[in-house]
């Protein structure tokens, strides 16, 4: 039931003072078309109705604060509460983006430092904090690629992307005006040097890669690929979705990447997925600095300032300076973890994924052999064929046991894929519980498959009609319905 359905005509939660005109008469000030004539149909509820409505919604919500959330490729790590404390300090929380530089030196210093920390973590020379999320960062990166070749008077149309990539990669490349060429991963789940070599020609502007890739495997040919790409004048783009596997171990800049994006809401513990806006900073090597969106934060002898002096800038990617509240949280996280802490986080993320892999491999065999990085991609063996229990059913059954299922049916190249990313913040007890639940479900699938197929049984709503929701989406409430 929505808040609109609870509306009763005449109910109010707050009494406004008597209406005064303040000398403003809409009829004479605004032109006809801006004056609303019909009712806005806002819900009419008492304060208590409203409080109960949202408290009850919060009760049926599920988040990483409620329980295990092993959504692959999303890095749903715990967001430490100290991040929230720092972001709510009034010196940050009460800023306005139009304030004078002189009055926001603290905020600018934070942004300047964050740019530098992210540069150091990734091995890049310059960072923009502007993009609002990962895919927005990708688009920023691809527009930089485009402008770079324009500035050299070179026309290059193609972007190479492996078949294991996130779907946003080809979408971003196409949005920036490139043609996408898909490259096949090999039988070990990685992109071989030879495949890249054969696909390269003078029309290839960039190669977009994720490392470790979406199968959780390290692209071991990366240095050779970077070399041959650069010999061809091609730029190498790094999708930072999986940075959580490698912090303090190896840096994209050292692997040979020219442009990267990060997801602060994945790797740097800021709220994620409807929990708040994202942030997708983009990093570049110094040769590409002049193409970054303006402004970046810089400093001179006297103060920190917004630097608009980038001669080939692609322009602005977002109003003002990015999602500042998110930047504060990432900054707090980096400082509270320190160098050693970030490295340890990546080590534990990888250890946790391999712990799950080793314990589940008999029933959820790995799609590809070898030690995985921060996530484990497997499939449910012969369950789909012999018992008609698909990955989707297993995922829904997990809801009955009170945990969030992992990512399913991605990457696309793995049939009936389950993609499990526990992250470093989960304890051995939580991982063991997940392993036990998974084993139990697989057992159920063999002895009583229907209970798994018909799941979920214990959730607030039963199985949703995803097909109908996609075919005939209803995204707006209206009174007649």
């Amino acid at each position, binding site marked *: 039931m929505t808040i609109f359905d609870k509306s009763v005509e005449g109910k109010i939660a707050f009494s406004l003072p008597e209406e005064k005109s303040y000398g403003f008469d809409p009829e004479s000030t605004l032109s006809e078309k801006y004056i609303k004539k019909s009712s806005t149909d806002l819900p009419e509820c008492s304060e208590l109705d409203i409080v109960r409505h949202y408290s009850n919604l919060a009760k049926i919500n599920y988040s990483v604060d409620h329980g295990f959330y092993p959504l692959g490729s999303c890095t749903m790590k715990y967001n430490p509460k100290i991040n929230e404390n720092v972001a709510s300090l009034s010196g940050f929380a009460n800023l306005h983006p139009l304030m004078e530089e002189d009055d926001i030196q603290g905020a600018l210093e934070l942004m300047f430092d964050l740019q530098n920390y992210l540069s150091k973590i990734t091995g890049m020379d310059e960072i923009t904090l502007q993009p609002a999320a990962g895919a927005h960062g990708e688009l920023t990166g691809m527009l930089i690629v485009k402008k770079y070749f324009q500035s050299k008077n070179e026309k290059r149309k193609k972007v190479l992307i492996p078949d294991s990539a996130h779907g946003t990669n080809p979408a971003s490349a196409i949005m920036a005006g490139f043609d996408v060429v898909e490259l096949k991963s090999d039988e070990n789940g990685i992109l071989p040097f030879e495949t890249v070599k054969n696909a390269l020609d003078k029309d290839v502007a960039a190669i977009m890669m994720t490392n470790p890739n979406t199968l959780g495997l390290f692209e071991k040919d990366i240095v050779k690929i970077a070399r041959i790409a650069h010999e061809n004048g091609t730029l190498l783009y790094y999708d930072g979705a999986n940075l959580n596997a490698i912090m303090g171990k190896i840096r994209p800049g050292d692997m040979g990447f020219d442009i990267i994006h990060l997801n602060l809401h994945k790797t740097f513990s800021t709220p994620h997925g409807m929990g708040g806006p994202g942030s997708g900073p983009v990093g570049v090597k110094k040769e590409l600095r002049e193409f970054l969106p303006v402004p970046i934060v810089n400093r001179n002898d006297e103060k920190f300032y917004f630097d608009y002096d980038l001669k080939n800038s692609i322009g602005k990617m977002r109003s003002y300076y990015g999602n500042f509240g998110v930047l504060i949280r990432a900054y707090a996280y980096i400082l509270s973890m320190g160098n050693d802490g970030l490295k340890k986080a990546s080590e534990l993320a990888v250890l946790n994924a391999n712990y799950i892999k080793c314990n589940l491999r008999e029933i959820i065999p790995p799609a590809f052999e070898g030690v995985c990085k921060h996530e484990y991609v497997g499939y449910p063996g012969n369950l789909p064929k012999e018992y008609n229990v698909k990955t*989707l059913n297993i995922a829904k059954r997990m809801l009955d046991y009170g945990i969030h299922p992992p990512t399913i*049916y991605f990457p*696309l190249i793995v*049939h009936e894929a389950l993609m499990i990313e526990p992250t470093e913040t989960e304890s051995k007890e939580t991982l063991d519980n997940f392993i036990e639940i998974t084993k139990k479900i697989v057992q159920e699938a063999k002895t009583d498959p229907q209970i798994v197929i018909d799941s979920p049984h214990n959730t607030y709503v039963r199985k949703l009609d*995803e*097909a109908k929701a*996609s*075919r005939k989406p209803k995204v707006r409430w209206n009174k007649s319905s």
Partner: protein
Amino acid sequence: MAKYTKTHEWVTVEGELAIVGITKYAVSQLGEVVFVELPEEGQEVEKGESICNVESTKSASEVFAPVSGIVRSVNEELEDSPELVSEDPENKGWLFKIEMNRQEEVEDLLEEKAYNEITGD
């Protein structure tokens, strides 16, 4: 008799026209179809070329032209009722008809038995 491709399209021939859709097996793998992006009528296609997309709750998949020729008609019913592809893939859920340039290309397509061996049915 329908013929098949390794990429899970079926083809039946009516005179000059090849009627094309995706197979029951393809549908069983895709999950519920929620949207079909059809090719343009009059579009020239080469055998093996990707010419339209089928989106399901799981993923988006390309459909490849099983023969070369010109697209003469598309199944417009799918615009409002993409579920026909899930419900009746090898009949009401047909996708498009191609006027063939080289009718002999049909000979290269798979017989039902050979196709079933690929899918393991």
